[in-house]
């Protein structure tokens, strides 16, 4: 099984804590470093609880903050078209900065810790979410906003009652991409000392301990799938008219 999420762990070859292999109760499997040691997994599953929760917090905070900022920017850019390009360029730059580089850039300012990781992850989500919200708002048929204005909706009412609801499918699509990538990227938070499942992947990496990598990676994948499914469902609930269109 190859887990792309675990990649950077190997690259950096972080060292395992000295007490890592203390629970060797299965004899052969761990020593031979087989692909997956079920006994070890059962004995050690508890150690993944905290990293998983940390990971959830990292992802949730980053996506939520990213959404709020991108939403504000998108609404501003929607009202003042001239802002659209600069915003797109700025979020584009943030998107392309490698996360690890971003951590190091932030270290002198925010130090090591979850906050640094969340800031970098948030910056990463902005472009995806911003782009989707602006696309969604732009795709609202002009005759619909024209009619809304003509029957007496104020600009604010048009935004909240017509444009945003109609852009919802695209907004949700952006959130899905952003969330899934953030679940993956958050495994790098460990390099900013930000915790999360990355800590397990890296400490298990030592390049040798495959079981640990597989468990942490699987949890991350499961998390991504779950978030994705939840957002998909939310999208369906928020856009009931889309279901009858097919």
């Amino acid at each position, binding site marked *: 099984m190859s887990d792309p999420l675990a990649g950077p762990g190997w690259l950096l070859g972080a060292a395992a804590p000295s007490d890592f292999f203390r629970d060797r109760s299965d004899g052969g499997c761990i020593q031979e470093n087989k692909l997956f040691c079920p006994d070890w997994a059962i004995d050690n599953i508890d150690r993944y609880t905290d990293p998983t929760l940390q990971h959830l917090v990292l992802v949730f905070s980053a996506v939520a903050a990213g959404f709020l900022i991108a939403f504000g920017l998108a609404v501003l850019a929607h009202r003042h078209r001239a802002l659209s390009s600069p915003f797109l360029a700025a979020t584009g730059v943030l998107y392309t900065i490698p996360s690890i580089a971003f951590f190091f850039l932030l270290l002198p300012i925010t130090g090591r810790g979850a906050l640094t990781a969340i800031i970098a992850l948030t910056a990463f989500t902005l472009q995806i979410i911003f782009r989707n919200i602006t696309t969604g708002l732009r795709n609202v048929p002009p005759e619909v906003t024209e009619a809304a204005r003509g*029957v*007496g*909706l104020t600009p604010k009412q048009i935004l909240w009652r017509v444009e945003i*609801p109609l852009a919802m499918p695209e907004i949700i699509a952006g959130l899905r991409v952003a969330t899934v990538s953030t679940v993956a990227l958050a495994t790098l938070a460990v390099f900013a000392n930000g915790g999360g499942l990355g800590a397990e992947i890296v400490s298990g990496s030592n390049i040798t301990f495959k079981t640990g990598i597989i468990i942490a990676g699987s949890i991350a994948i499961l998390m991504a799938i779950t978030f994705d499914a939840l957002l998909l469902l939310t999208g369906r609930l928020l856009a009931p008219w889309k279901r009858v269109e097919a």
Partner: protein
Amino acid sequence: MSAGPPAQTDRDDASGDRSSGNESTATPVRYEEVSKRYPGADHDAVHRLSLEVPAGEICVLVGPSGCGKTTAMRMVNRTVEMTSGEIFIGDRSVRQGDAAELRREIGYVIQQIGLFPHRTIAENIGTVPSLLGWKQAEIEQRVEKLLELIGLDPEFGDRYPSQLSGGQQQRVGVARALAVDPPVMLMDEPFGAIDPINRSRLQNEFLRLQAELGKTVLFVTHDVDEAIKMGDRIAVLRKGGEVAQFATPTELLMEPADDFVEDFVGADRALKRLALMRVKDASLWKAPICLAGDPTGPVRSDLAGAEVPHALLVDSGRRPLGWLSERDLAAPQVPSRPDTPADPLIDADSILRDGLATLLQSGSQYAPVVDGNGRLGGVLSVEIVADFLSSGEAAESELAAVDRPHE
């Protein structure tokens, strides 16, 4: 009238009648020297337009593209702000107060319909009532009433716009515009995107609605035929938003003000006039009539000076039974079964164009015209139509009388 419980609201007189509609009195719309120049343009899109649309009438703004007709209409609800001048709805200038509030009091229908795709039909129709803070029950009652008015089953209320045909969507668009029973409606090429057959049907439906509701309507179209059909009055605009002619359809067809109007109305404007007149209003001819069993002598002498050189056999209710031939009249008494049937019969309420078509199709020279009960009202001949079309001044005064039947 409303069948629902009386609405307990703090709003004034209108609140109790909401669900019943058509209670508002129509209001005239008056343009005074209205101009619009778009930023960066070197001349006015609309130039010093003065126009008065009487209450309860449909005024069609028609003209080639770029003549400013849509701009002129949209300045009424300030979806386009005028550069100078003044528009009054009743006594009130549209410039007073908030534009969004003004728009809620003016019905608005656009060509692309613009229903909200994410809202059900009921929610779409209830848009303005809900903006105005009506109670949910009031809104539901009103929506139900409007669905009935536009001939849609109540179950359509729960559907989304994408589930309706184009014609149904446009009806919903009209219902949305009528939701709070506004005295004034703006319609911007409302049937322009509908196929010809449905367009004609929607036009007829709207005319029927209008006969009932009596709104003051500003109606924009580029189609002269639609203008003639829909308008009580027509303003022909030329490029630059100037009125080339403001007249009733008849006046427009009879007496185009200048070459531009004449050109725009079209070479077949004479034929178009046939759409303006009902058969019953034409100067129909009289045929000698008789009942079965009458002596034929007097009938023969009637024929001598009659406009129609054939006698018609009718029953006791004056319903035509057939034409009498020479052979029929050779007998001493009028027979009960004449040689020639009375067909085709022409409905007195149909327009002259359709009457002529019936006549031409049947190949006969004369056709009895009957009212809704089948009673004879006169006889239509091709010659009558030809006279109507060829008569210049005479026909004009006659038509003027048609426009104002009660004078």
